[in-house]
């Protein structure tokens, strides 16, 4: 029996094509409502999708998703969005099986706040929380916070030593940030709340731990104000296009999203990520490598290619993406996923070209196709996101095992 595949769906606005909001089935005036997000996530849940990610940023949407450019001057693009963690929390009580993985920007925010927010998302979803960490190299976003200066730069500038150093520092800071987030999740042992009426103690304070993190970038004392979340460690994931990002993911993530143009590149990227994982001393840990794909799927009335072409025409430009763009039918996509799987990819994060249509094609056509091939689940086999992804509940780094001597 083949190894089952994991499927995630990346939710963003009306879909990933910039003209997707003009589709007849799109709801561009509902993007700021709870009902819109609830419907999408419930649809994904009916398709037994492992988890959804929710995009976010600390500024207006930009044309370039890799390195943040200044906001666009165009008026034909969706602008404005809601905080992704709050969207996930709003949806959590209305879903029961699917994982919820909001984006959190780590460059200008506080790891203490993000740690407790994701821990709480894990409580309100009963163990289905994760986070996709994202850094911001945008000068415009830096000005929204006014705490540091990030010079304006273009993607091509990454080759210059100054910009490379800037981005490299942002990645190092992000790695420290995730370390703080993770330590805070462990800063309470699971059985720290004792409610011992006999001694009057609500907690056993020996089971709460200062994390005492100090680095060039961050200094955080701890413990968290939130007890250890149900999963112990909610999922941490990151999108990675370059070696710096592979290294961050290999050091700190459970899932890395990569963007191989084809299965040969996929094999190369998998090799690189696994080497970084070994260098990080995490060889025994599960680190999923998900390939990101933008998908335009055939429907009964129109091919995916035609739909993409129609949207391109509306937008006045051919849609380009950091990830491979797939157009075609469910069987063809399933073939492609199998190819990637043979190259060492363990799952996929599908970015629907248009919502809800490409999402309903994923759940209504791709999922049944994968099920026929015995490559995808027929029911949620676990109640936590870690469980769905084959990750055990981790031991607490601060817990002293029974019988150990000091």
């Amino acid at each position, binding site marked *: 029996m083949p190894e089952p595949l994991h499927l995630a769906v990346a939710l963003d606005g009306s879909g990933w094509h910039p003209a997707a*909001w*003009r*589709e007849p089935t*799109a709801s*561009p*005036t509902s993007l700021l*409502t709870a009902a819109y997000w609830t419907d999408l996530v419930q649809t994904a849940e009916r398709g037994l999708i492992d988890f959804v990610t929710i995009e976010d*940023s*600390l*500024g*207006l949407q930009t044309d370039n998703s890799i390195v943040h450019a200044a*906001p*666009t*001057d165009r*008026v*034909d*693009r969706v*602008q*404005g*969005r*809601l905080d992704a*963690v*709050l*969207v996930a*929390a*709003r*949806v*959590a*009580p209305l879903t029961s099986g699917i994982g919820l993985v909001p984006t959190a920007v780590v460059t*200008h*925010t*506080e790891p*203490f*706040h993000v740690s*407790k*927010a994701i821990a*709480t998302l894990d*409580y*309100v979803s*009963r163990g289905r929380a994760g986070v996709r960490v994202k850094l911001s190299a945008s000068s*415009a976003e830096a*000005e*929204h*916070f*006014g705490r540091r200066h990030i010079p304006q730069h273009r993607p091509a500038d990454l080759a210059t030593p100054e910009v490379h150093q800037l981005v490299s520092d942002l990645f190092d800071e992000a790695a420290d940030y995730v370390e703080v987030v993770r330590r805070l999740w462990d800063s*309470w042992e699971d059985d720290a*709340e004792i409610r011992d*009426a006999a001694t*009057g*103690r*609500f*907690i056993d*304070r020996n089971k*709460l731990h200062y994390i005492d993190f100090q680095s060039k970038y*961050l*200094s*955080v*004392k701890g*413990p968290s*104000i939130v007890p250890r979340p149900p999963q112990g460690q909610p999922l941490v994931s990151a999108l990675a296009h370059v070696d710096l990002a592979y290294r961050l993911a290999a050091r700190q993530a459970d899932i890395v999203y990569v963007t191989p143009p084809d299965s040969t590149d996929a094999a190369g990227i998998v090799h690189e990520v696994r080497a970084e994982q070994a260098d990080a001393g995490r060889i025994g840990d599960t680190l999923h490598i998900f390939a990101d794909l933008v998908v335009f799927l055939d429907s009964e009335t129109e091919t995916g290619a035609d739909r993409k072409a129609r949207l391109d025409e509306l937008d006045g430009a051919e849609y380009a993406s950091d990830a491979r763009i797939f157009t075609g039918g469910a069987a063809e996509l399933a073939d492609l996923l199998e190819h990637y799987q043979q190259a060492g990819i363990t799952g996929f994060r599908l970015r629907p070209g248009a919502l809800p249509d490409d999402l309903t094609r994923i759940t209504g056509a791709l999922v049944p196709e994968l099920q026929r091939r015995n490559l995808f689940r027929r029911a949620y086999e676990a109640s936590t996101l870690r469980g769905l992804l084959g990750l055990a509940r981790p031991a607490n780094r601060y817990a002293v095992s029974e019988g150990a001597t000091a």
Partner: protein
Amino acid sequence: MTSKPRKQIHLAAHFPGVNNTTVWSDPRSGSHIEFDSFVQFAQIAERAKFDFLFLAEGLRLREQNGQIYDLDVVGRPDTFTVLAALAAVTDRLGLTGTINSTFNEPYEVARQFASLDHLSAGRAAWNVVTSWDAFTGENFRRGGFLPQDQRYERAESFLSAARRLVDSWSGDEILADKRSGVFLDAPRPGRFAVHDNHFDIEGHFNVPRSPQGRPVIFQAGDSDAGREFAAASADAIFSRHGTLEAGQAFFQDVKGRLAKYGRAHHELLVLPAATFVLGDTEADAQEQAAIIRKQQVSGQTAIKFAEQLWNRDLGDYDPDGPVPDFDPLLGEHTIARGRASVRMYTDPIAAARLWRELGAARNLSLREVIIEVTGRQNFIGTPETVAGTIDEFVQADASDGFILVPHITPGGLAEFADKVVPILQERGSFRADYTGSTLRDHLGLATPARESAEPPRRELAGARSAS
């Protein structure tokens, strides 16, 4: 006096926080972390047509004598995340979160509240609190960066910046015309700029205008600076004034400050926190209240309270003995860093003397004195007398309503909801059902007018010419 319509009472439910109000040892006391507790609590409040639910916040676990304080409930979930999740299981209840203006940044907090307001269809409120202490700062990037005397100044700047951010969208920008392909009426919406002593920020806010325009603003400080801050900027102020006379004095004072900000009396609500104990008879309620007070102030807890005043270790002291006959240590407070309560004692030696005199006069032990002086049970009685007292306070302008905190989580609120609320409704002093859908509707607050999101033109001249 001519008859006027009855003032309508506003009621809110405070999910108990990390202090000794909660009797966690009671077998009925549930989790303070599991989401089910919050759902149950919120649904009781909504069933009773309360105005809103309230969450407190603390960004560092309390410590005393250099150790994490373990006698009270410890730990709580993240405010925004819980409120957003509660929006899914409630329909009308306002959702008020306490969020610190010292260890956050305006852009992030403004987008979180605007998002919460969208996701709850207009039910978000923000209780703005400040802190300055380096103790809490140890959990954040900047540490203890803010001098104590600047905390309200930063809070004012923060709130003003947040207001500019949420006001940066008018609400008319999104056209989303599929046929013409015009999503926005103009490029780069949400333009804002704030340049003052505390913030140097500008750019574009990324959350379009939310249903309430702005979240409802609460403020909880009782100091002169806190009252002034509320009069200038808040929609409601919390207070803790137990007697009718003290409540009326406070009410007069803060409402009297409104005129100079061009605001009317009804634009700032006075909502004291209150506890309650209900019984079948007055005597039964009093007896219950005495038992609860003893549970809330154990011998160990009494010693901890005394240490906060005496500013020294009293671990060997007998709580059932007399009040200590020596004076508190003055100077820097080292026994309970970051505790707000220690700041209440502006003159510790005088406070200790009062405690000693009370103990001697009524032959009370240290613990009994502390039960007296930290007494918090505001409403004790039968449902009828409690309803009568609450109504009297509101009609006599000692408050506009109350924020109730039960001593049992989460079910302690049900007794009040089931027994007291119907009496208030019968009296015509409390709504029988919600008449609006937003928190502003419940509180009788108008939708605020937008302010300019931009400072005087000259600062923006260059940036503006681009568009």
